[in-house]
């Protein structure tokens, strides 16, 4: 185990969110494919998305997409912008700040009518 600093953890979460989004993509392809077999199959599976566990997972998915996108822009800035490396700390805080600013309110909208543990 290496005790890396902020840049390493941002990179680790970038990878994890990337893999998570890819995993959801496979699930999404699979559930959409069920429409081809008939509406009853599709409706049966889509019912799952109304369960609180899936609603929570959807919020996490939104978080993964937001984080991956915002951190991706930070990485692009680092490559293309001359002052990017010197502004590393500001960019780290900017990335996390913008992420939380978008993700937490999204949670309020997405989870407000969830019937928890139902």
């Amino acid at each position, binding site marked *: *185990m*290496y*005790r*890396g*600093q*902020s*840049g*390493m953890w941002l*990179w680790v979460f970038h990878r994890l969110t990337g893999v998570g989004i890819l995993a959801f993509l496979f699930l999404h392809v699979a559930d959409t494919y069920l429409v081809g077999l008939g509406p009853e199959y599709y409706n049966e599976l889509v019912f799952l998305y109304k369960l609180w566990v899936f609603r929570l997972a959807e919020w996490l998915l939104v978080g993964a997409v937001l984080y991956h996108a915002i951190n991706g822009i930070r*990485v692009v800035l*680092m*490559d*293309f912008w*001359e002052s*990017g*490396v*010197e502004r*590393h700390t500001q960019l780290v805080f900017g990335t996390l700040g913008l992420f939380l600013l978008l993700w937490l309110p999204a949670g309020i909208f997405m989870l407000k009518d969830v019937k928890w543990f139902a």
Partner: protein
Amino acid sequence: MQVTLKILRFDPEKDKKAHFKSYEIEADPLDRILDALNTVKWYKDGTLTFRRSCAHGVCGSDAMRINGRNRLACKELVGDIGKKITIEPMLGFRILKDLVVDMEPFFEKYRSIKPYLINYEDPPATERFQSAEDREIFDETTKCILCGACSGSCPPFWSNSEFIGPAAIVNAHRFIFDSRDQGSDERIAVLSQSEGVFRCRTVYNCTDACPREIPVTKAIEQIKRVMLYNR
């Protein structure tokens, strides 16, 4: 002060995998980690193996992982690290014995970027003139001592044995930005390959690990921009 050194040991003739062994020693807070390792080797366990040479942060022999971060053992003070010190060999290198790793692939990558002045013109009668401003551009990357701390702290370097690594890129930077050098295209050709500079994920571990305080990530990004904007 009483210090516990937990050292990752590996003897290729006896061990199938590396294991930790702890040593209790008496050390002064102003002792360096290298002094603590010497105390173990000289008075506790002569089989402990590690590299050291100048012991003054110049030769770059004793880079190792100290409490999880790559550092030179001769530059870190025991008092700054604490009473419990974990010492492991650097990641991304094959362990030869204990803290000694195989640096040859690292030097092979270093040689691949042609770390010497390339100039196809006839040598002038006097020196090749360079202004102080032009010299300043690559001043930081002249300080590399090839200890490997940067490459050994780099996640893409751990997972991809073909990745050229930050140390080789830093040394390419030293010549690419040298106004007297004419070999930039040859070095860029090496660095633009799939295992070249764009494998860098701007993790910043290298910048933190460099015992010479070279802004490694900044140097790597400068090379990326040369490649992006001067195509």
